[in-house]
């Protein structure tokens, strides 16, 4: 594909868009996994959000 003398500007623009979008997606996925891991850790240790007999163990939902 010949994009002419300004091809470097075009590819840099599209490259940055791809880089930022992939970076955002990666951050969102890793952040989600980290929160799930921390919730699972609390659950494994039996930590509950409320005290008392009606306490409900915090569950992570996918």
């Amino acid at each position, binding site marked *: 594909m010949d994009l002419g003398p300004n091809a470097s500007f075009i590819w840099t*623009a599209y490259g940055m868009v791809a880089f930022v979008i992939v970076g955002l997606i990666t951050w969102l996925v890793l952040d989600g996994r980290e929160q799930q891991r921390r919730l699972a850790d609390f659950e494994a240790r039996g930590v509950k959000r409320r005290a008392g007999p009606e306490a409900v163990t915090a569950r992570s939902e996918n």
Partner: protein
Amino acid sequence: MQTFTQRLANPTQFMRLSARLLPWVAGLAAAIIAYGLYLAFFVAPPDYLQGEIARIMFVHVPSAWIAMAGYALIAVSAFGLFVFRHPLADVSAKAAAPIGAAFTFLALFTGSLWGKPAWGTYWVWDARLTSVLILFFLYLGLIALRSSIDDETLASKLTAILALVGIVMLPIIKFSVDWGNTLHQPSSVLKLSGPTIHSSILTPLLVIGAGFLVLFVAMHLKAMRNEILRRRVKALQLAEVARAASQVVAPAE
């Protein structure tokens, strides 16, 4: 019977619904953007005046649309927090800020790359470029303000006030090209009299714009899910600290 928004007001219901929706929304975004890129590079002709460099428009303009739509969503969420006290309003506002900031950065960066060959300069301090730069700083301000306050309730209220004040930037950005001398071209898609772009270029632009919008929705859903989980983790941390404190105090009594 609960309305849709009432059902969504429950974080647990939201987590269930979003888990089901997210893969479909993300897949739809990928498909639309892929089709839009095909149209942009293999179907759309070079611009009659600017040639191939105008192809930057296909990512620059949708990024700018999402930058503004993202901020509008934050402002609506802030309104929802104050007026309706919707439990997910603050989650929505917080989740949208980094995504909106990223798209605002992309609008500035790709616009700058388009400006060099088209105008002969990467940057001019005209009304459109400067107002979008202020929008970018506004996003960063929202993120910085929230992260500087430990009290979640106070942080949500202060950022909501800033978000509502900052909404004034959206009409300023929209009409900045009509109000003064600028190198930036005037509106050519969102006009009362209809678009002034040829359909061969308008179609890929709208397709990628739709793809970016669906992508933003997918990212926002995921960011909201992460934020809900983060708040649950925080609540558990507080519960653990409270339990430990009660165990320390109990033997002394």
